């Protein structure tokens, strides 16, 4: 007892000494990093498992060729919609593909509507593709477009796609093969940045999509822990989607839907696989301002969804223990709590520490993150990338990537505060105000 007291006293003396504060920061430094390491290990192990599985897989010809309906939500994409439609026509999938471009607010978005109307489907060249456009004259938001498309869809599989996203030609066959397993209600697809070299901001995002989204989804998908089926690119079994009532209004309808599907995981052995071979190419925000606004929305939506809308459904009874723990750790801790810890730690360090210690600390943290980034980047290049030559150029950005991540963590805290204090989700551009006003408040 006395020993402990003396030890504590000694520590306090140390701390009150000239270098005390520095020591405190130094000793605190590894703690929160320790949380991140296991997750990274989990992801890397998943990637390894996926890689091994893929290479030992015997190629098989599946006779499972259901009709696929692609709902393409269009707003102000203009001629880009035609790129999306053409890339769907070009699919090597031997079954039928029904393309349903839904133009939201068609009265105002005449160029997009004209682009859809002008698209001529060459039935000689693409005999198993159908085009069934829908013009929603009055703007109703993304959710209304998706549900309108769902009402008209006739395929067994329904895909929710963005009008500014085009796809590799093996996308549909890669996605569809998972649905041969009746326990798969949804499959997540992977997105790449189409305009990677448009600006520094898009280039860094291209790397982020590969390392933080693509890699981590492969890893998590292996353990059936996919956190989100992206709204710009996801596939669903139509019967399941109709059973759970389609998409729900509010912002972040993709995460909402994923969580609602996952609420059945506790009852049935369902699976949401991630398909790394199904690749969509989308435009990332080109300016820093647009990018920050997008992330303000995304990260704020996380808070809105986890804390306000779905806090009651995050229980092991609904999600099953693995997904419950994963949501707790990655959803709550990493995405909601950690940003605040990092932000306050960084601010405190910035104001309290002497320059030399700050520099040392910074170098240490940077080195650690750089190591992790490099490891992920190499793993991505060797095991995952289907376009290694193209992705090699992104190596230039690896050194600044840890800084970018730090910035994003801090910005994430701002986004969370924006949602918590200002109900930022109500300012979304995904639906018009007259729709949001009527939506159930959380």
């Amino acid at each position, binding site marked *: 007892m006395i020993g402990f007291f003396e030890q504590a006293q000694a520590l306090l003396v140390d701390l009150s000494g000239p270098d005390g504060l520095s020591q405190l920061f130094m000793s605190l430094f590894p703690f929160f990093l320790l949380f991140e390491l296991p997750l990274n290990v989990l992801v890397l192990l998943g990637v390894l498992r996926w890689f091994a599985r893929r290479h030992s897989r015997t*190629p098989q*010809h599946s006779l499972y060729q259901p009709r696929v309906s692609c709902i393409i939500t269009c707003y102000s994409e203009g001629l880009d919609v035609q*790129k999306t439609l*053409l*890339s769907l026509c*070009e699919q*090597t*999938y*031997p079954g039928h593909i029904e393309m349903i471009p839904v133009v939201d607010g068609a009265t105002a978005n005449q160029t997009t509507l004209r682009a859809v109307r002008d698209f001529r489907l060459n039935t*000689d*060249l693409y005999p198993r593709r159908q085009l069934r456009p829908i013009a929603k004259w009055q703007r109703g938001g993304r959710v209304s477009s998706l549900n309108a498309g769902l009402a008209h869809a006739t395929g067994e599989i329904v895909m929710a796609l963005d009008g500014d996203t*085009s*796809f*590799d*030609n*093996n996308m549909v*066959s890669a996605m569809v093969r998972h649905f041969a397993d009746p326990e798969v209600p949804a499959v997540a697809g992977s997105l790449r940045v189409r305009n990677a070299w448009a600006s520094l901001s898009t280039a860094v995002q291209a790397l982020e999509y590969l390392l933080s989204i693509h890699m981590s989804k492969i890893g998590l998908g292996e353990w059936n822990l996919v956190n989100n089926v992206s709204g710009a690119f996801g596939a669903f079994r139509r019967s399941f989607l109709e059973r759970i009532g389609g998409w729900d209004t509010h912002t972040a309808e993709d995460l909402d839907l994923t969580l609602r599907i996952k609420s059945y995981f506790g009852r049935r052995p369902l699976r949401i696989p991630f398909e790394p071979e199904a*690749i969509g*190419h989308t435009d990332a925000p080109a300016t820093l301002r647009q990018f920050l606004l997008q992330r303000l929305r995304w990260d704020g939506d996380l808070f809105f969804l986890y804390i306000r809308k779905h806090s009651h459904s995050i229980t092991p009874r609904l999600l099953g223990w693995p997904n419950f723990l994963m949501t707790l750790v990655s959803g709550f801790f990493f995405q909601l709590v950690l940003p605040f810890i990092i932000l306050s730690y960084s601010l405190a360090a910035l104001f309290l520490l002497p320059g030399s210690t700050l520099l040392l600390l910074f170098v240490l943290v940077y080195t650690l993150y750089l190591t992790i980034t490099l490891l992920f980047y190499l793993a991505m290049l060797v095991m995952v990338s*289907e*376009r290694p030559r193209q992705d090699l150029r992104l190596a230039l950005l690896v050194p600044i990537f840890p800084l970018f991540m730090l910035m994003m963590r801090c910005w994430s805290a701002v986004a969370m505060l924006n949602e918590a204090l200002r109900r930022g989700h109500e300012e979304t551009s995904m639906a018009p105000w007259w729709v949001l006003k009527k939506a159930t408040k959380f």
Partner: protein
Amino acid sequence: MPSSSPRVAILGTAESSLSLSPLDRFGDLSELLAAPAYDVLLLDLPGPLAGQALRSLRLSESYRFSLIYCCRDQDAWCTALGDGTPPVDLGALTPLWRLWKERFALFNRGAAPERFETRVLAWLWLRSRGDIHALRDPQVPQHYRYPLLEALAIDESVNAFVWLQLMTQQGLLEEGELVDRLRLCIDCGSGRLNYVDVCAECHSLDIARQPSLHCFTCGHVAPQEHFLKDGLLLCPNCLSRLRHIGSDYDRPLENYRCRGCQAFFVDAAVEARCLDCGQVHEPEKLRVREVRHFRLAEAGRLRCRQGFVSETSHSEQFGRLNLLGARTFREMLGWQIQIVRRYREPAFSLLGLRFVNLASTLAKLGELSGHALVDSLVERLQEAVRETDRFTRSSEEHLWLLLPNTGAEGLASLRQRLARVAELLKTSEARDIELRMVGFSAPQDLLEQEDGELLLARLAGELA
């Protein structure tokens, strides 16, 4: 001359909304034909029936040239063979019929014209706005027919298109609205052609479109099936995966492959196969024919006015004035100009006459005295000019004289003589008619680069 108002009959069974009760009504065509001929007929039948009835009526001798109106809707046959809808007030029929009667009396002293050509011209001239109407008919191999010519041909077999071309060349008819352009088989003249794309090399019909891909990595271009391997697109040349259209590959062309000779070609050859005679032709070698409506030309009208009396009409020059068709006159004038340009001689002159208000005066005088006036004018002109001079009329009012071997002095003396014609006009009832003249003598008045057409236009401008 019979009574001053026409005898009008109605053909039509149903009681229609028309209140035509005081007129004779026939329910049946044969009854009408059996009855003594009427002057004017009204067809109170629906369009297709009216068309059929018109066809039979135009074939019968009594109603070949008569005024026949369709009271109800008009189909294409009615337009081609009838006189349109009747005037709302049936009283207005009388002056129309009188004009018809006066004009009809001019032919061969009241007898109906006998030759096919004169029959057609007469039919057109008897109605103020008559035209030869082309009618689309899928039954005919040439797709179009001229019902009027068929009806007036009686027993002669006439190739309508050739005949119309001839009449246009002679200046009797002029081209009206262009209706269509046909391509016809050069062997049998049928328009029922099937255009098929065939192999460019062996001309086999059995060809198929074959999409090709272009690999961006190595530039390889080959048919799509060479790229497809297990549902993936792999370049057979460089083995790279083609994932996304526009960034890895594109479809540069859509080629054809012949299933017979395996030839690979970009553009298929096109053949026109005649469905009637079975011959195969290259599309550009097909006979192109323009289908038009035709109407009476100035020369044709003049000839009708003269009542086809001088039947020396085989040659292009007809009438006592050696009147030429406008085109022939222009060509002759052009030739004279060319000669003068080259050899500076012989001199020639051109005289333009304009009878201002001629048409309105003729209308005021009525057919008979109007024509008497024109006849006396023509006689005076004939006295004034020489046998070698040539005339043409570019419109009702414009008369052109080409005087070969005549210099400025000769022209002046002719103008003096013609001035006496003008005096004749002042004394008679035609004092509204004003005679204007313009003269031209080559080579002194000739302008650089001016040809016959430009010269006539310039002089006509001076007459205005």
